[in-house]
């Protein structure tokens, strides 16, 4: 998995490429330093799939954003990822565009 990270003041942009599973999720989790961030954006256009370990990272980030009144967006999920979001009910929680 590859992670490209771009910070612009209180706005953090992350481009996640590859697979987000048990082995790779801790890496993403480690990259999420959310102090002072109130706008978080994931570009997952090239994310192959996400397992529950990956979902947990997204859910944790969403909770953190909610806690500080920030905003989180997930962009360009593929069909598999969108399906996972739908199955788990996360489509209603995340702001997916």
């Amino acid at each position, binding site marked *: 998995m590859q992670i490209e990270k771009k910070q612009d003041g209180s706005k953090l942009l992350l481009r996640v490429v590859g697979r987000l599973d*048990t082995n790779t999720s801790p890496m993403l989790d480690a990259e999420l330093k959310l102090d002072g961030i109130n706008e978080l954006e994931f570009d997952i256009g090239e994310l192959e799939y996400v397992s529950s370990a990956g979902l947990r990272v997204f859910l944790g980030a969403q909770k953190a954003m909610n806690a500080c009144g920030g905003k989180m967006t997930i962009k360009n999920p593929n069909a598999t990822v969108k399906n996972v979001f739908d199955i788990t009910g996360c489509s209603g929680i995340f702001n997916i565009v």
Partner: protein
Amino acid sequence: MNKRRCAIVVVALALYAALISVAWCVGTSEAMHKTEVLLDYAILDFRSTIFGAIDTMLGHIAKSSVRSFGQARPHTIEEMQVFAKVLDIDEINIVDRTGTIIAANDPRCLGVSLLDFPESGKFMVLTNGTTTTYSQQFRAGAHNPDVRRKYLGAAFPGGNGFIQVGFDEKHLSGLLVEMLGYVFDEWLLGEKGFFLCADVNTDRMISNPARHRDEATCLMEAGFDSEAARAYELKGETGTGETFVQTLFGEKCYCRNYVFGGHRFVPAVPESEYFGLRTAYVTVFVVLLFLVLAAFGWFVDRVMRDADSLKAYWASEDKRRAKDLAIASTIQNAAMPNVLPADPRFRLAADISAAKEVGGDFYDYFPLDDSHYAFLVADVSGKGITAALYMMTAKTLIKDTLLALHDPAAALTKVNAELCRNNPANMFLTAWVGVLSIETGYITFANAGHNPPVVMRKDGPPRYLRPMSGCMLAIMDGIEYKSRMTRLKVGESLLLYTDGVTEALDPHEVLFGDNRLLDVIGAARSYAPSHICKLVRTAVAAFADGSPQADDLTILALQYLAPPRVFSHLFPATRAGIAEATEFLDKSLESVGLAESPHAASLNIILDEITSNIVNYSGAHGFEVDITVVENPSSVTLVFSDDGTPYDPLGHIDPDTTLSAEERPIGGLGLLMVKKMSNEVVYTRGHNRNILKVVKSFPAVENF
């Protein structure tokens, strides 16, 4: 008396009445005809008698006059008048050979030339010396048209002139009374007919049938209505007149009305003359017909009663047959295997649709060993319970023999010998027996006179598999069947059927036929066995279009699928183990061409969820992953087994996915995803291991 018998009686009576009417009409027509003939005859006979008599009389007078005068020379009017009076004739002329009247009793005639009048001129034949007499019929006279006069001439010797005498019709009256009065009394027409003759002016009868003489003296007294008869009055020398009806002497008579010589002649035929006979005939006919009809009615009634008892017999026979058929159908149904083989290496479907009168179709399929599977379709001759029972025998025999010998030809050879040994009912059957080598797709088969199967290849249209067929079973002892081989590639199919398919008839009695079967299968988008069975059956039903199914319709389709590929590996229960397992799955999917499949991601997620569960929570030392790939319809089965603590992930309640991010406990989502993304998840515990099987199926790839 029941309704039907009433109907028969009514019909018989109607027939009776109709026939009597016909008989009556025919009788009437016949009697009328006879009456007419008799009346015609009476008129003609009467006229020839009268005219004959007049001719004789006048001939006699003329000839004696010729003798008296001697030669044609003038005489005074007075002399001639005396002569006429003596002879009681109305006219007498002496004519010289030039046709000039040289002597006459009527002064107007003297000097007249007969040649001036066409009719009179004909008398000149008397001057050629060969003809001695010549006469003409009554006609209107030259001087007085009201007087009808008859002329007769007699030649002087050598044709030297002649004497012409004339006699008036009205002059006949007295003569007729004299000549014929007595004749009419005895002149009977037929048995009962008679002649009436009366003076036209006085109506007084000059004759009367003897038996009526005392009863009447004039026509009116006899019952004759002259006014009514006027329309039928006949005069002259030709024709016979028209028949009319009058009541004479109290009896209805058919009459004619002939007026001649101042007299009325009425020939009459009483109705009883011929019509009496008609009544007699009709009566006899009525009686005979009644007897015939009564006999007929009795016969019909008898036949009906027989028909009733026959119907009752048939009804009971139908019931018995229905029961037989139900038994036959039960036997047939019970005999067929109904659980389809679960081997992932091939698929098989079979369908039997029994005709109303159950035939002896059957199919069978069963494993011979782990790698060989037998399947067959057969058709026993005949129908009903006999065929069904024979079918049972044959089916058991084929199965047992095949299980013992494995080779279809060897099995059929033995089965044939066995069936021939004991075949009192002379039954026979056709059978196609195949054995699939599950590992390779080879099919060894033998055919005992059965319809050739259809083979469906990936690279071409369906066609018949037609190597030479052997003889039907149970016909001839000592037949050696030969096995042949064909091979099905992955996805290819074979269709067995009975003649109920190809010999199905449409409403116009057209056969379904071999080519139509190929067309139907050729149009199939999928060669899945169940699909083919359904397709063929539907096509036959649509073709028959309501025509009754004459024979059982049996279809068996088999599709060969490759043996599944199994990948298996043991991994340590660590994070690194999970990574290895992921790589193992990727490689396995790549090796079977599923790396690019949209389902690969789902399989990866499933593997990630299960293995992370094992690693994180089971306390296992290691875990094993078995990947089984089945092609077309593709399915991938992942089996995870670990030596951790007993744990059934399916026993957990799925998390509530409607909760918000804050309310939601993180965790538990993984198993939910596994369930949702797979088709089957099964947990078992055995040999101190947790075993979780997850099956992911893909839709069948179409067209093979």
